[in-house]
């Protein structure tokens, strides 16, 4: 089984410590929600996995025989911000294969891109500029870009921010489907605690640059613990469908 191990990860910006002594491991087929207050180090943790920020400590990706996978097998989807490029949807997804692209795009590469676009229902947009799409469509295109290279680990930074409810569910369902089908590992940062609980097998709660708790949603989404971390009075309950509802009441 696939395994991602983080050992003693530490990130500093100058003298400021952003992450300290993060040691945790994840296994194939698992979706893990990373939650915590603003500034807790959630995004930095994801960026460290992709070497976008410098860190000390070690990250290793191995299978059950101990064989190491290259870090390129980790795909990172940054938070959806302003997209200024005029690249078409097809080209954006094609760039997911950038490490293997030669001058001429091969038939196999083009078909792989189209198969991914078709799977996500984006084929009709393939010749449209990404800049002309809605936020939800853009996020799906960037998910397609990440998935087209069939990564072992999918790392999503606030994949549902700025999306309407329908697109939130579409994007998260897609991540879950990929994780199950490929027995991959998906880490996602999310502020919506209900989505965190609904789509994860485990929740990683960060506080003051370190791990406060990592466990199944039932154990992390306790009102006392969350009130203590978020400084907000809240109710945690389960609805009729069995999903967690986290209702913030007032700041403490």
């Amino acid at each position, binding site marked *: 089984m696939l395994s991602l191990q983080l050992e003693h990860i530490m990130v500093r910006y100058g003298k400021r410590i952003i992450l300290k002594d993060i040691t945790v491991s994840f296994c194939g087929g698992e979706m893990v929600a990373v939650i915590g207050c603003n500034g807790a180090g959630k995004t930095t943790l994801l960026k460290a996995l992709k070497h976008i920020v410098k860190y000390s400590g070690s990250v290793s990706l191995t299978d059950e025989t101990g064989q190491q996978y290259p870090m390129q097998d980790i795909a990172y989807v940054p938070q959806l*911000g302003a*997209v200024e490029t005029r690249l078409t949807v097809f080209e954006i997804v094609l760039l997911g294969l*950038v490490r293997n692209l030669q001058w001429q795009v091969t038939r196999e590469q*083009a078909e792989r891109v189209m198969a991914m676009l*078709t799977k996500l229902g984006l084929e009709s947009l393939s010749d449209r500029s990404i800049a002309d799409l809605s936020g939800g469509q853009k996020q799906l295109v960037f998910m397609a870009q990440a998935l087209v290279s069939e990564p072992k680990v999918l790392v999503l930074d606030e994949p549902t921010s700025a999306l309407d409810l329908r697109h939130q569910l579409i994007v998260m369902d897609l991540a879950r489907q990929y994780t199950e089908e490929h027995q991959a590992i998906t880490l996602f940062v999310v502020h919506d605690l209900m989505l965190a609980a609904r789509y994860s097998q485990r929740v990683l709660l960060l506080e003051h640059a370190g791990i406060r708790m990592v466990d199944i949603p039932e154990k992390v989404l306790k009102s006392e613990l969350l009130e203590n971390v978020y400084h907000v009075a809240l109710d945690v309950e389960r609805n009729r469908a069995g999903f967690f509802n986290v209702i913030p009441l007032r700041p403490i």
Partner: protein
Amino acid sequence: MRKDTKQSLTIYERINRRRWIIALTIIAAMACAAIIDIGVGSSKMEASSVLEVLWDGPDGDTPNTMIIWAIRLPMMLTCLFVGLCLGVSGLQVQTITNNPLASPYTLGITASASFGAAISITFGLSIGGYVWIGTAILALLFSLGASLGIFFLGNMRGMSANTLVFAGIIMNFFFSALQQYLQYMASAEVAQVISSWTFGNLSRSNWTSVTVVGILAVIGVLLLAQWSWKLTALTMGEERAISLGVDVERLRLQVFVVSAVLIAGAVGFIGTVAFVGLVAPHCAKLLLGEDQRFLLPVSGILGSLLMLTSSIISKLLSHGSMLPVGIITSIVGVPFLFVLLMKSRR
């Protein structure tokens, strides 16, 4: 699903076919402009006689052989290669700074080359008895030095696109001030020569400038072409490019150095030429999108086309003599840029 995939692949092939048609049309327009440019001058020649002289080669016996092979052809080819260098380097400066307003001119690389040339002119530096070689080499050295200075200044602050632009603006002010100081201190005659150098004048062209700028242009384009996909990825933003496995810092350094050499080669021989490095990439993007496999060569060819058009206009306006082409590129470039601005707002 199979049918959808096939249909959409056809769409992608159609986009690329359209790009090929546009690129070939621009190449044809450039070839026409090149023939017209050779024909225009104090003694006007028909396109057919230009082609005839070119076909006969430099040993032909027509009266125009000497005019074309010794004067007009090297001037046209220098103009073409300078435009190519400026169009390509302008595109890459915009790509690596992620700033559509960046150009060799706004980043101060041109100003540093000008200052190098001004030093050479002021102190009469000659290499092998030729002043123009000294001028070109100092322009090249200063633009390389300034480019590295911009890069390392930017690097100290984490090499973001904004710090790169900011470092470039500092360089621009610094070298412009130094050049003004040189001009202020120099004799009236020397100040006049420096001033005329900054206009960008094709009359300094010869077969050496064709060879040097041509070789630089070809090598530069080939080097940049191998990074086409990475540069295309960079148009999505630094973080997304890194997330796809592109070593953005290394790519920026490589592209910056190649662009600086191209700019130095371009301005070292004929002087400062504004607007080409800004306008040509914008036109190319508007026509072709952001795929650098098409954008890179077409930015260069549009740069050549703009330079050749300016050269033709400058010769027509001055009735036989030649206005500095740098003045015309700005005048021709303004309406180009205005139309682009209007189109992009729509």
